[in-house]
């Protein structure tokens, strides 16, 4: 296996093992996302037109904040006994470390979202079987994870990391949030691929650009 894949998969394996044993990341994300969605159902008049207007925002508010919670937990676990420094002492490229951490966070977020979506579909009468939505979900989650991992690495060394991460994260992730909400709105309204494909294209471009930038700058972020 190449010098990239072997250590990258080792980082991913380590994060998956830690989560399988500690359950400190996905479970809080799920609980938080569920609470947000339930509160929205209480707050909104159940008329279909209103539900359709609110559903995209409710969905992405719950996913975004749950994602931030998960990222904060992942990096807090990494910091406990200096795990991040331990990773930095290894001779693997910083892009490898970034990709390993990114994949772990991406999978945790995706897992929480996959569990939450049927609940959301039941409460908001959301059409789950639209393939374009799943493409959007994967791309937007990747974008969140790409931004979140690098800013979590920055925020984890600050005292107010729970506040710092959203403050750093949201201004950069705005294009993905807008695209995700707009495209989800199209799906809820029953519009076709042609209506929301441009939002998916925007999310794809964001992902490619941010992945490249984050992978090359991760080393600078980690060092004191």
């Amino acid at each position, binding site marked *: 296996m190449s010098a990239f894949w072997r250590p990258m998969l080792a980082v991913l394996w380590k994060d998956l093992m830690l989560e399988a044993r500690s359950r400190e990341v996905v479970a809080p994300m799920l609980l938080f996302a569920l609470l947000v969605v339930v509160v929205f159902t209480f707050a909104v008049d159940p008329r279909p037109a209103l539900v359709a207007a609110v559903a995209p925002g409710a969905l992405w508010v719950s996913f975004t904040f749950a994602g931030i919670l998960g990222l904060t937990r992942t990096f807090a676990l990494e910091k406990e*006994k200096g795990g991040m420094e331990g990773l930095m002492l290894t001779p693997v490229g910083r892009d490898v470390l970034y990709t390993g951490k990114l994949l772990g966070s991406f999978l945790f977020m995706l897992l929480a979202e996959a569990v939450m979506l049927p609940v959301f579909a039941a409460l908001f009468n959301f059409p789950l079987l639209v393939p374009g939505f799943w493409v959007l979900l994967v791309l937007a989650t990747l974008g969140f994870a790409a931004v979140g991992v690098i800013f979590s690495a920055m925020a984890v060394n600050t005292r107010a990391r729970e506040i710092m991460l959203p403050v750093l994260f949201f201004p950069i992730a705005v294009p993905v949030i807008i695209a995700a909400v707009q495209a989800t709105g199209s799906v809820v309204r029953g519009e076709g691929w042609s209506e929301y494909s441009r939002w998916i294209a925007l999310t794809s471009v964001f992902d490619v650009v941010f992945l490249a930038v984050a992978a090359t700058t991760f080393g600078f972020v980690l060092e004191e």
Partner: protein
Amino acid sequence: MDTKSATLHQDNTSASPALEVRGLVKSYGAHLALKGIDLVLPWGQALAMFGPNGSGKTTLIKVLATLARPTEGQVRIAGLDQRRHAALARRLIGVVGHNTFLYDDLTARENLRFYARMFGVTKPDERIAGLGEALGLALHLDRRVRTLSHGLQKRVGIARALLHDPSLLLLDEPETGLDPEAAALLESLLRRHLERGGSLVFTTHSVERGLAIASRVAVLREGRIAYTEERASLDVQAFQELYQRFTRVGP
């Protein structure tokens, strides 16, 4: 040691010292933690770094270990510029810090396997078993790290640092938290490392332990090397008095 690292070691040991530091400055904002460090450490030698709390010992280890960027100056490890050849330099370095760099919810063996994969160690299971024996960890390798005592965790941390058979060891107060038996095991491992031509830099507050293994001593004070001497020509009594004076609180 993996092939790349072994080749490097052979290429550089004869021509270049294990560690060469020139004009090293490290600042955190307005605070100058290191104010111009110069030192050269030949192969097969141990440098004991003493100094009061806040003198810059940990910062120095962090910079040497590539965990912190130097503000000014240059660090060469086996002749390699540590910034330009960071990945190669990291293959040559083993670090024991205040943190163990371990994951609580993995077993000791899983932690060591993880780091072995990160360093590309060949035959990791044999290496882990060997280090487990040498550090008295054989019975504890399959326990989760969070269930181990602080001293045992520290031993696993030392095994982690030695996994890839590094040429230069950087140890920040390595004896902290170790019982006398473990401290003796560590000392014998370090002596073996020196006999095989490796080098080490370690910080300590224990004059007795420091002098037991050092080839050279240095005292760091307010970010500068305030005193340095070959161990062989050191007057132990005078050094102890000097060190007490450096670490005394108040006038």
